[in-house]
């Protein structure tokens, strides 16, 4: 592109696009979640809400809302079909994620996946940082210098992974009991149903209360943290929330490499809409459980 050309020259899209504001000179953004991770979160979010809404009528079959909730999916039969479909999608997504992790670890040789600052595996640092967080709660220590993942984020991740695999296995046994009986004794169906329900209670309570609070609803994040939808965190926030990671990125010089443009307004808006719907549905479903338990 030369200035000698006529003034009617077609500018590159990103320059003329009004939906993408130029990055603010003050706010720099740092890459946090790639597209795969963001997509995985969306799939888990949608299927988890779907599985909860279609499974709760059965888990709380004596609650006054059980038949109403099932009726939204065309009655118990419809709810069962949606539940199995959602379960299959979630299991597929988690299987794909595990394959991806193995491929990254063993084919691409990303050893940092299993140990080190960016790993999801709990390490000694997590225990000392947990203790420091306890002290910080009481104003007895500064906020810990967190790395790429905090201990509660690792717990979230591993709990979802473990829960999905266990509930998926139990769900498959309950879905295909005749086939399962060729390898398992029949009393395992009893265990499978109980474990499926108990893990569901744990998961629903954990996601709709603890994860929502830690990730989105707590003061400072309220009403939600958009990083899982936009993939980018502002440099200021990163420095504040994950001082350990920030210092490492500055030291290694990776910060410049990981600097990305500010998320487009449209991306943020989409994330805010999807996030609000998800939070509202989750809180609503948790309210129904409270209604059933406290009745």
């Amino acid at each position: 592109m030369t200035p000698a050309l006529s003034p009617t020259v077609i500018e590159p899209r990103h320059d003329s696009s009004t939906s993408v504001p130029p990055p603010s000179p003050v706010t720099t953004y740092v890459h946090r979640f790639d597209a795969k991770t963001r997509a995985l979160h969306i799939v888990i979010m949608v299927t988890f809400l779907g599985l909860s809404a279609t499974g709760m009528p059965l888990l709380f079959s004596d609650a006054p809302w059980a038949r109403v909730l099932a009726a939204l999916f065309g009655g118990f039969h419809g709810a069962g079909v949606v539940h199995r479909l959602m379960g299959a999608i979630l299991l597929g997504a988690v299987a794909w994620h595990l394959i991806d992790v193995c491929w990254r670890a063993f084919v691409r040789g990303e050893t940092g996946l299993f140990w080190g600052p960016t790993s999801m595996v709990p390490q000694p640092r997590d225990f000392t940082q947990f203790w420091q967080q306890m002290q910080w709660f009481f104003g007895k220590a500064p906020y810990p210098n967190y790395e790429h993942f905090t201990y509660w984020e690792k717990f979230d991740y591993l709990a979802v992974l473990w829960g999905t695999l266990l509930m998926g296995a139990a769900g498959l046994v309950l879905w295909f009991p005749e086939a399962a009986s060729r390898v398992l004794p029949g009393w395992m169906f009893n265990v499978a149903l109980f474990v499926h329900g108990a893990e569901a209670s744990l998961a629903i309570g954990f996601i709709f209360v603890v994860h929502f609070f830690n990730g989105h609803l707590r003061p400072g994040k309220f009403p939600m943290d958009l990083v899982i939808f936009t993939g980018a965190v502002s440099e200021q926030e990163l420095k504040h929330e994950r001082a350990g990671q920030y210092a490492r990125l500055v030291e290694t010089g990776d910060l410049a490499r990981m600097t990305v443009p500010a998320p487009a307004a449209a991306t943020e808006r989409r994330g805010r809409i999807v996030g609000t719907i998800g939070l509202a549905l989750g809180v609503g479903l948790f309210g129904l459980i409270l209604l059933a338990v406290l009745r």
Partner: protein
Amino acid sequence: MTGEGTATRPSPNLLGILLALILTAAAGVADAQTVAVKAPANDDCLACHSDPDVKRANGTSLAVDPSVFEHSKHGPLACVDCHQDLAKVQEFPHAEKLAKVSCSTCHDAEAAKYHDSIHAWAKEKAGLTAAAPACADCHGSHNIKGPDEATSRVSRANIPATCGSCHQGVDAKYQTSVHVAAIKHGDAAPVCTDCHTAHTIQRADTPAWRLSVANECGTCHGEVVESFRRTFHGKVTELGFTRVAACADCHGAHDILPAANSASMVSKARLVETCSKCHQGANESFVKYDPHPNPHNYARSPLMWWVNRFYVVLIGGCFGFFGLHSALWFRRSWRNGKDRS
């Protein structure tokens, strides 16, 4: 009458009023005559009907044994209290064809229930006039007795025979069941009406009936039904979905037998066959499933007891830990104002 007489004329005139007055007077005289007629007393009826040989034209008996009637629940009543159309009859012998006795005149609640039953449907809608029972077919007519009287057709002891007079095959099966054995032993056990009700009898394959029958079993087998409610079968049934097993699907209904009896549907010998009714391909391993688990009963379900304990600790620990964690965090952040973390 007077209203009709005047209203049909657009402008009232003397003739109209006169006609109305005459008609009113005539009606009054007719009423007075009806009141003056005395309804026949029971003795008047029994003058003919106590003769054991009195018969209809087609040869069926018309005899009423006065002693039987006097000892029945309706003994104090007059014949014409039920046979109301005979109250006005003056000439005897009266016409052979009489109006049907309407029990609902007094027993309106029972009649309303009966009206919704499959028996009433068969009689009134399907036209099974001879086969389907009305009141007298179960309760008797001149010999009606209360259900608490031993000789009553609807006493607990006689109900199976009463229902069995039509449902012979069902009664034969029922007589082989553990419920009959229990009754003979002097224990409390259900007769037909305990499960099917007396007046609101439904088809046994309607969803409403299938969904409610577990409650009937639960009146005696409380813990068993409670454990059923914990299973997939029980939970789905509670949601109103009838394609899964409820009590009778596995245990049978009329010929129900204890598992120890090898002829029972839930005996070890027949479990594979019974489960296979729904679960094609069920095998010996499959039927090790416990359809009535109780995680609170260590003797019955030791494994479930441990699994339950494990999750009580896990769920309690998780929510306790992270509940406190979140509460402390909230408190700290609140004090810090909106300043991050």
